[in-house]
């Protein structure tokens, strides 16, 4: 590497010097050039030529161009694995650039030369960045020239490429800066690599361990609210997060539009700034370390004792946490075994660390107090989790510090949820974003109750697991516990932080407490995706859609144009009726499904939204009636050939380990007389999987009511006639004649 002399009139600190440095790193430069050529221009040629050869003549020109644009986008945009190559290059470049610090020969060579150490650091550091920037930019440019020559060009592609270029550069910058730091604080190549990997991944590993411990010990810990990979100090994961936001959605709903690129850039700003700040901090620390690093450190594993201690401490404590969790599981909570495991782990990790640092087996127990500190901290953390010393399980934020809340099911809710622009979100994402409950006190009352129950239930479950660890009855015993709803409460704190807790709400929960929160538009509007912007957008852009009313047996199909009218009626009903008590007690009469389909002319997603209709929803029922969709709760008796009821006595049958299990045959009875059919149809209900606030005991799944629909019944839209549908009785409401016929015990 060449360094100029700041006091020399023959040498400048400019590009010539950088070029000279690059020339001293020829093999690395060759890798950069090859990577850039292969990744951008060569793949562009291969892909676009392939498209022409494969599709030319088969597709109309417009479609072929569209495919080519898409393929070119996959070369220069987010939809590729270039970030892996960039990560590797940044790592290698940083290590190679500063590896001279590891050999006395090279240290003597460089450090005796007339150049300021600050200039040497800066020039070396910048050289790595320039190597990447210049080769990548050249690669991009060549790719665009080739694509243009082959007729593929759009302004949005340039925007997309620029966004990707900046994102990849920030990824490079972050990995490079942290690796430079790792290299500079180390004294040997192998330690440089190890410390750099440690710095790049330590936070993610620690977050992973916190996640594991929290899931193991904290009953109210909501796993989905904790992003393990959201490690601030790991540029790799930051990039993945940004690319996921920018890339994977980018090609879905808004292909190659400048507007969407700008929107996505806005999404990337925060993580990009975070990445930049991390890179700047890492560079500043690397410079401080470089400045204070003594030349005689070459060949010593770690240059600064503090780094040695931090690496040993973090690795040791992390390993102790993992051991603690594992031993706790294996030993079924035997504290002595857990402690022993942690102490042994601390001993092994600290000993191995010392052997690595000193390259001497005799150094393994050199600092026994380190072992003690690591073991004590490891034990402390596991005990802290186990006995909830931080009060995590009982934590309820102060009302004044909460902006708003959300409360939703842990397993998601029925149906799909959409952003106003049509982007599909999963239920958790949607409620986190759009459910904004401002009755904080009401939510906290539920949370207080739910968290307590959750902790008690988990403790009981754990105790039962331990008590019956060799006993097959454990599962049965646990299943006999009363039915509960598993909910998540999320607090949006005024500080910007989000706090999550899992709740368990048993059926005996005070309905008034639940009604207070649920009888509120802030709760039920998002619950049913009632967003005017979304509805209007759907109405404006949809090509073809259907509105269906399904009672479990009958499905009446209507035009999608009814959707807006339906939502207005449904909204009124929600306002008037919806609350926990209604959803819990009332028997739904059916479900309305709305399904707009864009797939005929575009690649927009197909929506699928469902709305549970209760008999109390007068406006909705009237709207459905007015539009010929509502035909009553069930089929008319004359449209039913017969009904067969199957009773499976094994469904709810307890299974005890000390008793031989006896399988009983499924019993069935066919009813064809109108009287029985009428009684059965009156008692049976359909199973709407998307229902909220229904008890597990709502329907009796041991009795299946299979309705054989008459062949004269009107055909469905595909021309099919007749068929069957399956219904269930409500729990404990099986008609007496069925009980008698099928010998169902009380």
């Amino acid at each position, binding site marked *: 590497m*060449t*360094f*100029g*002399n*700041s*006091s*020399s*009139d*023959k*040498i400048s600190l400019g590009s010539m010097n950088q070029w*000279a440095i690059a020339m*001293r790193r020829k093999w690395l430069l060759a890798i950069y050039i090859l990577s850039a050529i292969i990744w951008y221009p060569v793949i562009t040629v291969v892909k676009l030529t392939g498209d022409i050869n494969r599709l030319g003549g088969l597709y109309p020109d417009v479609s072929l161009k569209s495919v080519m644009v898409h393929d070119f986008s996959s070369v220069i945009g987010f939809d590729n694995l270039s970030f892996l190559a960039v990560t590797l290059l940044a790592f290698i470049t940083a290590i190679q650039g500063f590896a001279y610090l590891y050999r*006395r*020969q*090279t*240290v*003597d*060579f460089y*450090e*005796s*030369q*007339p*150049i*300021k*150490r600050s200039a040497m650091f800066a020039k070396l550091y910048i050289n790595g960045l320039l190597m990447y920037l210049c080769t990548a930019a050249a690669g991009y440019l060549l790719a665009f020239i080739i694509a243009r020559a082959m007729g593929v060009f759009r302004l949005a592609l340039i925007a997309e490429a620029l966004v990707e270029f900046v994102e990849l550069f920030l990824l490079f910058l972050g990995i490079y800066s942290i690796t430079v730091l790792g290299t500079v604080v180390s004294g040997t190549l192998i330690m440089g690599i190890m410390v750099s990997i440690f710095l790049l991944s330590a936070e993610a590993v620690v977050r992973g361990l916190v996640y594991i411990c929290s899931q193991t010990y904290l009953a109210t810990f909501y796993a989905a609210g904790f992003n393990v990979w959201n490690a601030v100090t790991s540029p790799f994961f930051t990039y993945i997060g940004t690319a996921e936001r920018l890339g994977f959605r980018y090609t879905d709903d808004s292909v190659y539009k400048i507007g969407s690129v700008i929107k996505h850039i806005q999404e990337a700003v925060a993580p990009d700034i975070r990445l930049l700040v991390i890179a700047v901090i890492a560079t500043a620390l690397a410079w401080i370390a470089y400045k204070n690093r*003594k*030349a*005689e450190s070459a060949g010593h594993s770690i240059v600064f004792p503090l780094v040695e201690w931090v690496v040993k401490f973090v690795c040791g404590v992390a390993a102790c946490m993992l051991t603690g969790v594992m031993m706790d599981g294996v030993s079924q909570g035997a504290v002595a075994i857990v402690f022993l495991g942690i102490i042994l782990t601390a001993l092994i990790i600290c000993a191995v660390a010392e052997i690595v640092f000193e390259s001497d087996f005799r150094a393994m127990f050199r600092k026994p107090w380190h072992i003690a500190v690591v073991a004590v901290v490891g034990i402390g953390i596991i005990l802290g989790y186990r006995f909830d010393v931080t009060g995590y399980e009982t934590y309820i934020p102060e009302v004044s510090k909460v902006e708003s809340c959300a409360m939703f099911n842990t397993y998601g809710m029925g149906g799909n949820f959409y952003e106003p622009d049509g982007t599909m979100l999963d239920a958790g994402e949607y409620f986190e974003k759009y459910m904004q409950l401002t009755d904080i006190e009401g939510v906290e009352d539920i949370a207080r109750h739910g968290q307590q129950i959750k902790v008690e239930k988990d403790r009981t479950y754990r105790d039962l697991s331990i008590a019956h660890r060799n006993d097959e009855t454990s599962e049965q015993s646990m299943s006999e516990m009363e039915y509960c709803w598993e909910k998540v409460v999320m607090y949006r704190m005024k500080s910007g932080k989000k706090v999550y807790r899992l709740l368990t709400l048993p059926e005996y929960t005070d309905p008034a407490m639940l009604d207070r929160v649920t009888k509120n538009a802030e709760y039920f509007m998002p619950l049913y995706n009632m967003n005017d912007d979304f509805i209007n957008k759907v109405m404006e852009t949809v090509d073809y859609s259907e509105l269906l009313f399904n009672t479990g047996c009958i499905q009446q199909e209507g035009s999608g144009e009814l959707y807006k009218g339906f939502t207005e009626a449904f909204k009124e009903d929600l306002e008037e009726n919806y609350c926990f008590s209604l959803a819990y007690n009332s028997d739904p009469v059916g479900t309305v499904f709305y399904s707009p389909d864009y797939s005929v002319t575009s690649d927009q997603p197909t929506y699928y939204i469902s709305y549970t209709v209760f008999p109390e929803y007068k406006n909705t029922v009237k709207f459905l009636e007015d539009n010929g969709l509502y035909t009553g709760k069930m089929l008319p008796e004359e449209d039913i050939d017969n009904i067969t009821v199957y009773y499976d006595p094994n469904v709810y049958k307890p299974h005890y380990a000390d008793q031989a299990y006896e399988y009983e045959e499924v019993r069935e009875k066919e009813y064809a007389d109108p009287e029985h059919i009428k009684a059965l149809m009156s008692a049976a209900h359909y199973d709407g999987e998307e229902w909220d606030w229904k008890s597990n005991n709502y329907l009796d799944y041991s009795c299946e009511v299979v309705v054989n629909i008459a062949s004269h019944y009107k055909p469905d839209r595909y021309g099919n006639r007749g068929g069957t549908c399956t219904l269930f009785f409500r729990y404990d409401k099986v008609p007496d004649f069925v009980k008698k016929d099928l010998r169902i015990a009380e």
Partner: protein
Amino acid sequence: MITISNINKSFGEIHAVDNITLTIEEKQVFGLIGTNGAGKSTLLRMMAGVLIPDSGEVLIDGEKVYDAPSVKEKIFFIPDEAYFFPNATALDMKKYYAGLYRGFDQQRFDKLLSNFNLSPNIKIASYSKGMKKQLSIILGIAANTKYLYCDETFDGLDPVMRQAAKSLMANDMENRDFTPIITSHNLRELEDICDHVGLLHKGGVLLSRDIEDMKLNLQKIQCVFREGVDLKGVEDKLDILIHDVRGSLHTYTVRGSREAVEAIFRGIDTIFFETLSLTLEEIFISETEVVGYDIRKLIIG
């Protein structure tokens, strides 16, 4: 002038340099002698601004050297194992150093390379160890720096090449402001080149003298006394450092000017006496024995 004041340097528990104070005058060849581990290289690396002393200071022409490019511009450091870029040729290294040192004389480099029969275009990796040392010396000379530090650069060079390298230095000392500082663990390597020698042992300086001064002030006399001469009386008049007797032949190494010592011997009834020239080795043996060291065990190979 290089002024080293009370410098200390430790590597962990090893005290490599122990409170050294030394002055290196300009336009003289300064030799640093010491066993392996005596602290020669550590001292030189501190003088080159590679290492920072734990305490004390190194001043080159009155300025601190560490992280001072303007000072380092006056220094060319040839470490004991010189570094060349992988796959580099002599010309590559010339180009590199020419970009670092303003005074680098490229023509002279080419000429010297030719004189030393070193090929400019073959990879340095294929050079022998001696050839690499020659190349280092050529680069150091061509750099035209005021100070040239050679860390055991001459050790292992064949006599012809060593002589050639020494001639080069002598030539430069005559023609410009040039001060080579050469370390070696073998006194004989420096005998015919150094003007001033510093002897390092266990991190400290045992002595630092001008060779000429030492030579002028130390005399080696061989003589045979006639019978009846009062030896005790004679020896009382001399400042004897070493006295060796083989039969009737006495050999004295004494402190004092040649004239004064010879005058003493002329006044004694001897069968013959003659003043012999002292080798550097003998000077060192004499000087260090006085302070209780056996130099033969330390540095004479």
